């Protein structure tokens, strides 16, 4: 599995686009919010947790269709499917590589972008913690969506339609954690729920994804 993760990271770094694209998109999205709602500091600080979370979530979505599509087109996926590693392992490795190349950078970038939106100082720790945990679940769910739509030509739009509803619990719990932190409430409960959700996703989604891959490769 490790060589697979390494290969995917290298591909993401070298082939251009994938790696920096999500970050640039995140930046532009956050930049657009004051243009849309006005530069009022108080208002921006209030909506900052939600905006940052939605921004990270949408940026995650951008690179999802690359997870399996490129490998499916040049036949690598067929080779990997017959390799000694089980499909669940392949699915896990793909999702992990996606998280390292997308979720982690987004988490790191969220702090300065949060400052731009005037996020109160009590929120940063919880923002980073919730994004680091939450984007892992986003990557796994996205990988599942990519596995389902791998056989469909131009499945990008469909992929979003399938994956976004699955993101709802993660988004609610993640944004709630940050909102509670800046409101002075105790955010540990929602963060614990979020961690539980992520663990559930990481444990079970690879099986569903491998079923979908098998159906698509048949």
């Amino acid at each position, binding site marked *: 599995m490790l060589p697979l993760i390494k290969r995917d990271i290298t591909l993401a770094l070298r082939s251009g686009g994938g790696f920096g694209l999500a970050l640039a998109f995140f930046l532009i999205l956050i930049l657009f919010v004051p243009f849309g709602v006005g530069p009022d500091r108080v208002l921006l600080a209030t909506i900052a947790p939600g905006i940052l979370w939605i921004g990270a979530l949408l940026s995650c979505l951008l690179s999802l269709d690359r997870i399996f599509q490129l490998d499916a087109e040049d036949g690598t996926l067929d080779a990997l499917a017959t390799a000694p590693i089980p499909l669940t392992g392949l699915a896990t490795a793909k999702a992990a590589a996606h998280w390292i190349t997308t979720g982690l950078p987004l988490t790191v970038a969220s702090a300065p972008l949060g400052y731009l939106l005037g996020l109160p100082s009590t929120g940063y720790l919880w923002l980073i913690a919730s994004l680091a945990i939450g984007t892992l679940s986003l990557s796994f769910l996205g990988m*599942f969506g990519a596995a*389902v739509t791998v056989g469909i030509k131009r499945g990008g739009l*469909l992929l979003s*339609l399938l994956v976004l*509803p699955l993101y*709802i619990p993660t988004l609610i719990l993640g944004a*709630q954690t940050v909102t509670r932190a800046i409101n002075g409430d105790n955010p540990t409960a929602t963060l614990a729920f979020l961690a539980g959700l992520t663990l559930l996703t990481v444990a*079970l989604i690879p099986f569903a994804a491998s079923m979908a891959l098998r159906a698509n490769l048949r």
Partner: protein
Amino acid sequence: MSLWEYANPVKFMALSGRVLPFATLLAASCLFTGLIWGFFFTADDFKQGSTVKIIFLHVPAAMMAINIWIMMLIASLIWLIRRHHVSALAARAAAPIGITMTLIALFTGAIWGKPMWGTYWAWDPRLTSFIILFVFYLGYNALWAAVDDDDTAADLTSILCMVGSVFALLSRYAVNLWNNGLHQSATLTVTERSPIDASYYTPLLICIAGFILLFITLVLLRTRTHIRLRRTRALLARGSA
């Protein structure tokens, strides 16, 4: 003789063909009786006036919206485990009906909500989870439409239905948490009149039975259509070969 015999499309067609007229008749008579009784022969509520009568549409539709998804989940599991084609097609046939039921529930709720709550829409946990259910239905339906190969489509939609069920349920409870966190819980709980008066209860039960029968009728009809469509395609493929 067991239920699984009807997994055979020929036997299913024969049985459903015989059941369909009765189901149609029963559904029509139940809906006719229940709705007429409910709308014209019940007293107005002392607080809500005649708006209360929308429950005869709203409650059955909302119940069906959830139950149809559960039926789709069961049909999907049967397809994944035993690979009966009728089961997969029944799940496919049920989805658009589920979408319609969700929409009916949302719209009747909005119509009732305007005079009672003073707004068509509130971000109440129940309302929100219904919109979420609607989105899940849309994704499921779109996936059926997007995949060309029938068996692959059945596989993929079944897996999606399975995963979607888990996350729809999670959303239902996450939404609870989100709303309590933001503002006070449910604005007006007029809906919680649990010891409902008998004069409403009987027509409501008839309406619910009518909706269930209507669903059975429609799902049989649509499954038959899908089976016939598949047969036609098979015949065409044989003809051109």
